[in-house]
């Protein structure tokens, strides 16, 4: 047993972190929110060039996967920098399209970053993230997986960087029986890792803030009430982290659901603490903290509400009886 990232995985994380730091994601996120996708698309290509989407695509189809642990490493960094776009959805699409004929047709362009994909659960009644910019629109309804012919108008999300659309009904039926449970495990793993990264960024920013913000003549970070909230956020995040990587190793639906509910819960609790400790400045849209605060809320319910994830955990326990 060696439940530790190896040197190569740590170097992969560090190189993504450096690239995303240099990309000035806050400015890019704000343009993405207004529907100006040029900068975001360029960053998408560089993320693909770093091999991130290929991690979910088998080697036979121009990928280097499946490598869920490395994918989790990457998604922590994507979350840390609040990268916009249908990241989880593109990974999920790659798993939904794993039948050989579909894989041959679609996966190469997902791995290379040429194609962004999005997925709506519930067919025409469902919601697809960034349907206005994704080229591959997948609609998963009662009769199977369809290639949607278009998308509806963009609806605002609590997280302005998440542009929500419906998908048009009809379209080509790609397969009546895509591997939904397996795709959901990948989606929950990626979302959990992304949320962990969001939470870690919120913690870092808030620690930096309370060290320099002075009131009553001392940094507010010297007050126990402030310290203890940040300690609790740290505890929640550091106990979510092993669930995320444990799920990446086992790829069991229960582990992925546990990782999702814990990492998203920890990120959301950290967001509440970050907002409270920043005070009024944290409550403004113009301060960059808002880009992470709103994402923590949105990820909590994306790809499985806390309730649905707990149901997966309990269902699994009942089967093991």
């Amino acid at each position: 047993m060696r439940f530790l990232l190896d040197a190569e995985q740590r170097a992969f994380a560090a190189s993504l972190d450096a690239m995303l730091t240099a990309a000035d994601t806050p400015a890019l996120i704000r343009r993405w929110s207004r529907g100006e996708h040029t900068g975001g698309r360029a960053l998408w290509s560089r993320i693909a060039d770093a091999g991130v989407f290929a991690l979910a695509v088998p080697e036979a189809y121009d990928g280097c996967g499946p490598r869920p642990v490395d994918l989790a490493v990457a998604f922590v960094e994507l979350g840390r920098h609040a990268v916009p776009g249908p990241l989880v959805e593109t990974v999920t699409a790659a798993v939904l399209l794993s039948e050989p004929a579909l894989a041959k047709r679609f996966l190469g362009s997902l791995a290379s970053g040429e194609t962004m994909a999005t997925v709506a659960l519930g067919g025409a009644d469902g919601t697809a993230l960034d349907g206005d910019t994704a080229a591959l629109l997948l609609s998963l309804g009662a009769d199977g997986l369809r290639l949607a012919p278009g998308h509806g108008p963009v609806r605002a999300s609590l997280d302005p960087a998440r542009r929500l659309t419906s998908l048009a009904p009809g379209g080509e039926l790609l397969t009546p029986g895509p591997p939904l449970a397996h795709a959901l495990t990948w989606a929950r793993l990626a979302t959990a890792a992304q949320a962990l990264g969001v939470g870690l960024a919120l913690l870092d920013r808030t620690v930096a803030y309370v060290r320099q913000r002075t009131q009553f003549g001392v940094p507010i970070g010297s007050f126990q009430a402030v310290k203890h909230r940040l300690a609790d956020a740290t505890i929640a995040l550091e106990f979510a982290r092993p669930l995320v990587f444990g799920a990446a190793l086992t790829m069991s639906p229960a582990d992925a659901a546990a990782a999702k509910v814990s990492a998203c819960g920890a990120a959301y609790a950290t967001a509440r603490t970050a907002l409270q400790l920043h005070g009024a400045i944290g409550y403004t849209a113009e301060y960059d903290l808002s880009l992470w605060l709103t994402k923590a809320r949105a990820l909590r319910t994306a790809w499985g509400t806390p309730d649905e994830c707990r149901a997966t955990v309990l269902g699994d326990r009942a089967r093991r009886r």
Partner: protein
Amino acid sequence: MDLDVTPQDEAFRAEARAWLHAHVPAAPLPSLETAEGFAAHRAWEAELAADRWSVVNWPTAYGGRDCGLVRWLLFEEEYYAAGAPGRVGQNGVSLLAPTLLDHGTEEQRARVLPPMARGEVVWAQAWSEPEAGSDLASLTSRAVRTDGGWLLSGQKTWSSRAPFADRAFGLFRSEPGTPKPHQELTYVMFDLRAPGVTVRPIGRLDGKPAFAELFLDEVFVPDEDVIGEPGQGWRIAMSTAANERGLTLRSPGRFLTSADRLWELWRELGAPDATRDRVADALIGARAYQLFTYAAASRFLAGTPLGPESSLNKVFWSEYDIALHETALDLLGERGESADSEWAEGYVFALAGPIYAGTNEIQRDLVAERLLGLPKGRR
């Protein structure tokens, strides 16, 4: 990165499981915090030790199997899954023994550890004093030099297991006049039945004598019962404290079993919706604690000493343990109020968790200051 267990480790696990299956008492032992229960738990330790299962991670020379951390974790999972009794020797095994292995002499290890492993000598801790709790370094009990040893005087309190234990270990102020309070402390082992020692049991919340006050009046301790150099006790004890908060005080196996038992109870009672989330969170928390511990063990085995992350651990398990037992009592309703149930006993035991081994407030300060780098302030 992997979670793989080698076939040899699996064989070890199977051997432990088979032994436990054959030996674990069919009915639970009486409460550890009673004279009768203490004796029964002591006998159980002897039974474990007879087949070298009482301290599996210790060196073989002292009664262990030198099995390593991974096998220790597997053993603990099997131990609790088998419904085996609580460990009466916990204070000695998880606090004093690691200290002796790191800082003791060979003579001390050979003399103290084997009878500890067999449950013949059960150890109590003697850290806190009436005026020195979280601020432990302000303690005032003294060790005064005498021919061939030291004379201990003063008062200790909240000494877990002391009403029925044989010996105790703790810190005493030995070198008045040195400039810093934590440089004057000496780590001492002493006999609870020595002349000059008075043990006054204290009833915990449910009245059971789980701890005691110790009054010491010129209690003689020979030089060979001082651990490390006189005056170095603080540094030595803090390395013990890291151990206590770290890997070995609460094994993941214990919570995996508790969460499973809670889930079984929930199902037996018709899987009520009202407690569904809390039961799911108990299962998730046990898995998180297991994986967190695997990661800490992996770091440790890769050569990284345990650091302030053990404070994260202590807050997590102590609060988790209470939440789990609260859920069980809520599920049981009127039956939960009955004080003789195992869940009620576990609940009362869990309530102490956030207080001992460094309160959770102190742990949160340590997380904020040592992990996050926040400035020190008034506590």
